[in-house]
């Protein structure tokens, strides 16, 4: 608006919006409100008529016949009576009529009532909008009468990069919010980012998981011995473990103490993560001494892994293990934890069979 960059412009509001124009606009809006109110009134009459009719239709079949005056044209009627009081002929529209019982007629009428209700709602919303508009006009009119001036100044933009990155970081924390606001493309990129983060976390989780599982496996092995009616599937998974992977795990278990980073090799194949852990369990039995010492050194990673695995609780059995083991109080076994312990138990059983 302003010709120079620094200075703005000062315009009396009255010159931008002349009072007569405002009054004209306000009058137009008022007229529209009146129209809508009339329409609303008409609809409400329809609605009350409809409700009365519903009551009538419900009551009619209570008696076999009703004495009424039967209209004969507009200006005359005969004394007569209604018969077949549970048979109604209802207009469906376009000149089609249907024979209905009282109950079915009531249903039709109630559906009509719902339509009317929605129309009433929409008109009420329109009236609300128009009233807001009218109040705006009135406010403007009073401002013009007060002689308020409008001051305009040019806005100099700052670099807005920081703002964008700031707005993006909360989305990572709450992806559900991002889903609502961000476009699909943004959301996809966000998801890929989250996947990376999840991979990282799972890496850590496995790090803690493997050692934790081995240790707890030791603790629990006496309990698990009598359990024989375990599902067959986990056993199959164990048998399907590739040999080379087992060898890989050998190596992994040996170096577990020093090189946590090495686990990235295993963690890359996320699908086989559980298998790796389970076979790791078997190795852990042999290397019990080593693992015990590892466990002590791994206290911190374990807690991290537990918190991380809580986030992606849907991914698989590993998660359940970590959660179950971390709490390590088996007394508070809910149903989900039971399933977790079930998937854990076959490991030991398999182990027993192998030995």
């Amino acid at each position, binding site marked *: 608006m302003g010709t120079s960059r620094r200075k703005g412009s000062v315009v009396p509001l009255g010159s931008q919006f002349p009072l007569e124009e405002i009054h004209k606009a306000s009058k137009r809006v008022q007229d529209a409100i009146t129209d809508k109110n009339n329409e609303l009134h008409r609809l409400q009459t329809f609605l009350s*008529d*409809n409700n*009365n*009719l519903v009551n*009538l*239709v419900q009551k*009619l079949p209570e008696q076999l*016949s009703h004495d*009424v*005056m*039967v*209209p*004969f*044209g*507009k*200006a*005359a*009627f*005969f*004394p*007569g*009576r*209604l*018969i*077949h*009081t549970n*048979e*109604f*002929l*209802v*207009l469906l529209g376009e000149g089609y*009529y249907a024979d209905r019982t009282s109950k079915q*007629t009531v249903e039709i*009428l109630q559906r*009509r009532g719902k339509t009317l209700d929605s129309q009433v709602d929409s008109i009420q919303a329109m009236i609300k909008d128009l009233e807001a508009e009218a109040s705006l006009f009135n406010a403007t009119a009073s401002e013009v009468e007060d002689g308020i001036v409008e001051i305009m100044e040019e806005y100099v933009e700052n670099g807005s990069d920081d703002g964008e990155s700031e707005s993006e970081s909360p989305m990572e924390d709450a992806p559900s919010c991002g889903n609502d606001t961000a476009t699909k493309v943004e959301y996809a990129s966000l998801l890929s980012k989250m996947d990376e983060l999840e991979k990282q976390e799972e890496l850590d989780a496995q790090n803690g998981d493997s050692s934790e599982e081995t240790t707890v496996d030791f603790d629990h092995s006496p309990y698990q011995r009598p359990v024989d009616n375990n599902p067959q599937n986990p056993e199959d998974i164990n048998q399907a473990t590739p040999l080379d992977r087992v060898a890989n795990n050998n190596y992994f278990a040996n170096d577990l103490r020093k090189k946590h980073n090495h686990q990235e090799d295993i963690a890359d194949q996320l699908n086989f993560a559980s298998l790796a852990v389970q076979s790791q369990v078997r190795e852990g039995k042999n290397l019990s001494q080593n693992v015990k010492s590892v466990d002590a050194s791994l206290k911190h990673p374990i807690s991290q892994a537990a918190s991380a695995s809580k986030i992606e609780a849907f991914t698989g059995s590993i998660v359940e293990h970590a959660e179950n083991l971390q709490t390590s109080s088996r007394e508070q076994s809910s149903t989900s934890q039971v399933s977790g312990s079930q998937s854990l138990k076959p490991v030991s059983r398999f182990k027993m069979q192998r030995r």
Partner: protein
Amino acid sequence: MDNLRQQKIQKYEEFVDKRLKPDLLHATAQRDKVFEQQKTFADLRRNIENLEKNSVTSLRTLVNLGSEVYVQAEVSNTQHIFVDIGMGFHVEFTWSEALNFIEKREEKIARQIEEYTQLIASIKAQIKLVCEGIRELLEFPAEKPAPERIF
């Protein structure tokens, strides 16, 4: 002088717009109502004559409950019919009595229609007159009469 004429013209125009034209609309609406009545009674008369011709003693019909929902109704005795005589009163007639009444009623309605037509015509004439007066005040040349139809 000119100013006075302007005022006069304005007054005439106001008279046309605010008095005569609403009157005309009102009269037309009234006449339409009477036309409707005429049609109602003509229908009734035809219906009763039909009943007489077919010597119907009992009748089955559908009654509109509103919102186009109909129920069957039975009239056991059609000899007596209640006819609207105006002001919300209904009188029990036999068929012949009803036909007599309807005949008289139709006469009256026809008279009413005639009256309204006269009224409408006079209002239209007044509008035309005032418009002509305005034209004279403005000193426009007289309009050419519409070409008359030659039979």
